[in-house]
């Protein structure tokens, strides 16, 4: 469970540090007009609110994957573990996912700099690469299944399918949001700020899932 605990400790420490900054040395019973800097207005600044919610979601997802990694580490120590040979295809998939992240970053920069013409191509390239990744994963599962390396063969296989599957589901969730952003761009009737915000948040999510993938892939390769 150490991995889960470490991830959790990091999340909680971040939170704690922030809470400490908020509350240290205040005497709450003293009534006074508080300058309104510590927080935002009633409805908040939209992008900030969404960013906070996204960060919250990422914390949840971090906890989710960290716990699977913990289970992986615990299960690995039991006697029957036979390391699995990962399909070579995963390298190609990894490449695609990295490129997708780069493409998204490029699109985001374009959005921030107001270069609207780049948005659609950027989003489409990202989408194709990401879809390519998911399809590639699917092919990899097929290959394993066909070569007699199915999910029941060994716990290492079971974890492989579970981890990559869970990751793919998160990617698909991201693609849903990507799809909505892309439609907005195609329809062309949305506010530029709205689109920019969507793209910015999506980019963070993509980078995050790339990071999860790299850790996950590294874990699979090293064991």
């Amino acid at each position: 469970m150490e991995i889960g605990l470490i991830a959790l400790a990091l999340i909680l420490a971040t939170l704690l540090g922030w809470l400490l900054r908020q509350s240290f040395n205040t005497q709450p019973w003293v009534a006074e007009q508080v300058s309104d800097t510590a927080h935002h207005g009633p409805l908040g600044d939209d992008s900030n609110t969404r960013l906070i919610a996204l960060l919250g979601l990422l914390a949840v997802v971090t906890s989710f994957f960290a716990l699977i990694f913990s289970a992986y580490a615990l299960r690995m120590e039991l006697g029957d573990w036979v390391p699995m040979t990962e399909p070579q295809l995963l390298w190609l998939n990894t490449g695609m996912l990295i490129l997708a992240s780069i493409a998204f970053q490029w699109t985001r920069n374009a959005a921030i700099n107001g270069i609207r013409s780049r948005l659609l191509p950027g989003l489409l390239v990202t989408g194709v690469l990401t879809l390519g990744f998911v399809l590639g994963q699917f092919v990899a599962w097929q290959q394993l299944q066909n070569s007699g390396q199915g999910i029941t063969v060994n716990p290492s296989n079971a974890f492989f399918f579970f981890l990559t599957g869970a990751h793919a589901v998160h990617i698909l969730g991201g693609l849903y949001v990507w799809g909505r952003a892309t439609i907005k761009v195609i329809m062309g009737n949305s506010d530029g700020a709205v689109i920019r915000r969507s793209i910015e948040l999506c980019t963070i999510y993509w980078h995050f899932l790339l990071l999860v993938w790299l850790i996950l892939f590294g874990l699979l390769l090293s064991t």
Partner: protein
Amino acid sequence: MPFAVVLILLVVGSILFHLLSPWTFTELASNWGMVDFTVDITLYVTGFVFVAVNLFMAYCVIKFRYKKNARATYEPENKKLEAWLTGLTAVGVAAMLTPGLFVWAKFVDVPEEAHVVEAVGQQWHWTFRYPGEDGRLGEVDNERVSAKNPFGIDPEDPNGQDDVVVYSPEAHIPIDQPVKFLLRSKDVLHDFAVAQFRVKMDLVPGMDTFLWLTPTRNGRFEILCEELCGIGHHTMRGAVIVEDQSDFDAWLDRQPTFAEQTSRAPGNAAIGAAQYTVCAACHGSEGQGDEAVNGPKLAGQSAWYLKRQIMNYKNGLRGVHKDDTIGQAMVGMVAILPDETAVDNVVAHIVTLPDNPAPVTIEGGNIEDGQQEYRVCAYCHGADGLGVQALNAPRLAGMSDWYLERQLQNFRNDVRGSHPQDYYGFQMGLMGRSVYDEQAMTDLVAYINSL
């Protein structure tokens, strides 16, 4: 005001209940008096806090209850007081934790000289294994478990040959000798708990767990499974018999080793056939049974079950209840079988008899209602009613229905299964009580007849 009075009464009442309660720890029978000591310390500390805080609260409710012209004090915090309270609490916690950790350290550290008994749990009974003369247990593996080798002992492992196997939920241990119970499960989680010993530990399939103790008192102490293990969880009982070393040695000597058990010659059906002529008087020449003389059908019943019941009659576990007149008659009859070999022989003959369904003698049951009743039965006796040896559940389908009904009555009325050593009968007694009345029983039998 009444509220505060009730609070005070509750505090006083709780203390009185505690002092007067006849329900308290059972008399200790092991070396784990330290556990009781830790409990006592915790009781004193927590009892003090319980009384002090609640009485203080009651006092506040009386003293500071609403008065029209009164006004509460304004006091956001009092760091000094809070620091004191925190400090005192920490001291109290440390006072409780320290002995706890100290005792746990002893529990974790098994003495070198402790002898080993393996307790094996499975749904829903206990069996035991002793290491034999070489002092070492043979390798075991759940995948090797079979009817012939219920412990799953590796036949190739020389350490396993002299292992003493006890296929009964009763373990014996000598008094004043530290013993380490090695705990192993064949199927699901179980928990080995003896109230008088104070210690318990789960059995986890796929790994060995342990606990240790030194028994300090002779007697029979019940083992209860305390980790939910399925529908028969509450029936999973056993006993540890603590006795003097000499009694223990004599008992151990009488138990078969793994080698003896596996090399035991199968019963000789030819010899058994000769002895069966006596049985045939009531059970019929082909074991078909005869209700008129209270002889149930035997043909088709599993050999292990027949043998166990005959042995139960012989060993005084069955047919001893004053209301079990038919069983008493049977006790007289089995006396013609002098020993276990004779029992094996006659059983070997019975299993060769042709198995034709017994005639239906009980009418008027509703099969659909019976099917509902049978849901619980099916967990052990199987959906097909053919019995499951691993669960000690005999065949029901196609056997004498009148006998089935009578035995169910007997189980429900403690006529059968009430002997403290008839563990499997005890289980059936607990389960059989959920068939509530005559009609339910008739329905049930009707359904079993339809299987």
